[in-house]
């Protein structure tokens, strides 16, 4: 029983890591309708910014945290300008965006390797990493923080997207930029906003990952898991992405803990595919019978 509870805690904390990435990633996805594979790269850059602000500039933690998020936001917008905007202007199909995103992700990662170097950087300890203890159970401090932060980000984003005028404008732009422009929406600004928010969230995730895992050029790789989780949760649905993440985390944990860690991904992928067969739009995806 204790073992099971501990495993659930483990699962939730892995899930929060995925969720933290998934919110930013899924936001851009739901607006732009393509997988922004550069998101992992931005997370990584956020982690490096946080690291340098803390160690080279000796900034206080809160400032470094915010600074990293802002820098990440700027870079995310930069990526959009360079790699996606020209495609957007030509109404290119989503495949081209994905390839461009892959190019961007390759560029970012290797740029860091070539300049900063491939070595691992350890974050200075800002606060105690001692886990909370609940009887025989251990709950990670950073994990708890990630869980809370992803919940807050999610709530804030849902509010922003569903209940503000700007949010509606974002959704409209996602669907049809031309028609949105006719409503007087500055679509370019909207897209910048979306990428900035996505980048900001990536920056936050980056600093937290950096503290948890150290910083290295491939730290963004785990984004692939949040991609999977987001699809599983139902594409275009922010809560779906987060719930999908948590479920994926728990699922992986239980499989490792009770079946076979050697075949973990095999089993968890099979389960996900199995679920998709019965629910082809993911957990929270909106059912749309195509209207002819």
């Amino acid at each position, binding site marked *: 029983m204790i073992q099971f509870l501990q495993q659930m805690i483990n699962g939730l904390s892995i899930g929060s890591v995925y969720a933290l990435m998934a919110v930013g990633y899924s936001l851009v996805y739901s607006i732009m309708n393509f*997988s922004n594979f550069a998101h992992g790269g931005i997370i990584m850059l956020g982690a490096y910014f946080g690291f340098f602000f803390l160690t080279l500039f000796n900034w206080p933690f809160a400032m470094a945290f915010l600074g990293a998020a802002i820098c990440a936001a700027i870079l995310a917008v930069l990526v959009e300008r*360079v*790699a996606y905007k*020209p*495609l957007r202007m*030509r109404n*290119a*199909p989503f*495949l*081209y965006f*994905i*390839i*461009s995103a*892959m*190019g*961007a*992700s*390759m*560029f*970012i*990662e*290797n*740029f860091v*390797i*070539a300049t900063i170097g491939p070595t691992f950087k350890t974050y200075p300890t800002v606060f105690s990493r001692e886990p909370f203890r609940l009887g025989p159970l251990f709950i990670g401090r950073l994990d708890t923080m990630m869980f809370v932060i992803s919940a807050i980000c999610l709530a804030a984003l849902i509010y922003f997207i569903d209940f503000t005028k700007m949010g509606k404008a974002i959704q409209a732009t996602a669907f049809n930029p031309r028609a949105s422009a006719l409503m007087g929406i500055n679509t370019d600004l909207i897209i910048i906003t979306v990428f900035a928010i996505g980048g900001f969230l990536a920056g936050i995730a980056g600093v937290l990952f950096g503290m948890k895992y150290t910083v290295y050029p491939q730290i963004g790789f785990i984004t*692939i898991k949040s*991609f*999977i989780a987001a*699809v*599983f949760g139902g*594409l275009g649905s922010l809560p779906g992405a987060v719930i999908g993440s948590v479920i994926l985390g728990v699922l992986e944990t239980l499989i490792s803990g009770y079946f076979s860690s*050697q*075949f973990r*991904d*095999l089993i968890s*992928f*099979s389960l*996900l*595919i199995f679920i*998709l*067969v019965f629910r*082809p*739009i*993911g957990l929270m995806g909106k059912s749309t019978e*195509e209207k*002819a």
Partner: protein
Amino acid sequence: MDWFYIKGILILSGINLMAVLGLSLLTGFTGLFSFGHAGFMAIGAYTAAAMGIKLGLPLIPSLLIGGLAAGIFSLFIGKLTLNLKGDYFCIATLGFGEAIRLILDNVQYFGGARGWPGIPLKIDLWNVIIINVVGILILINLINSRHGRNMIAIREEELAAKTIGIDTFKYKMISLFISAVYAGIAGGMVGYYTGFLQPKMFSMNKSTELTIIVIFGGIGSISGSVLGALFLTALPEILRAFALWRLVAYGAAVIFIMISRPEGLMGGKEITLKGIMRLLRLKNRPGKAAEG
């Protein structure tokens, strides 16, 4: 440049091309996006190697059986997942590719993650060229038949394709099957070329590399795929001198091509004999005029 080295690049391009041709049918002509083709390559590679080593079959039958094994596998996958749309299908294939790799990592009979050395070397430039020429001819004939046109119709407008009586599921399945066979044969060639197989060789990076080539060459163009495979396999070699900056340049090149030629190299057009003749004639005409 030394011929020995160029030959190496050409053989590698040829191997990539074989896999790309298959993916081109699936992604370029049928409009399905796969992240798991490396998985089919892996199945083909291990099966073909086993045919040669354990049963002593010659190269071509081994490759064909490898391709067929991948094809048969694709039928199972397709049956489950081809009803999924867009990214859902994409995730399912990604999961499949990773699952195959994980299984191979664990199967000690084939060396597990440590790899399988000692596969006889049977691939040289000539048989690579012959295999590819046959592969290209088959694909051209297929595309220019009613079957190929049905696949293109699915890519263009699935609903309309259904209402003119195309069994879209069946044709997606055929497309997936053929593309898996191509990938399987390509995988077999990998083993017989390097003499060594390791699950790592068939990672998701390999799948994305193939996709990049297809899109880069231009969706729905076989000549685009050929040029894309040649160019993108050679590009990292050309960039060797950049050392650390090599993949930075590669990433930048991918972005650059996508944004400057968002239709890919060939943009859905084909280099045909007729086209070349026409081009030559165009060039000749002013000359003739001058004579007259």
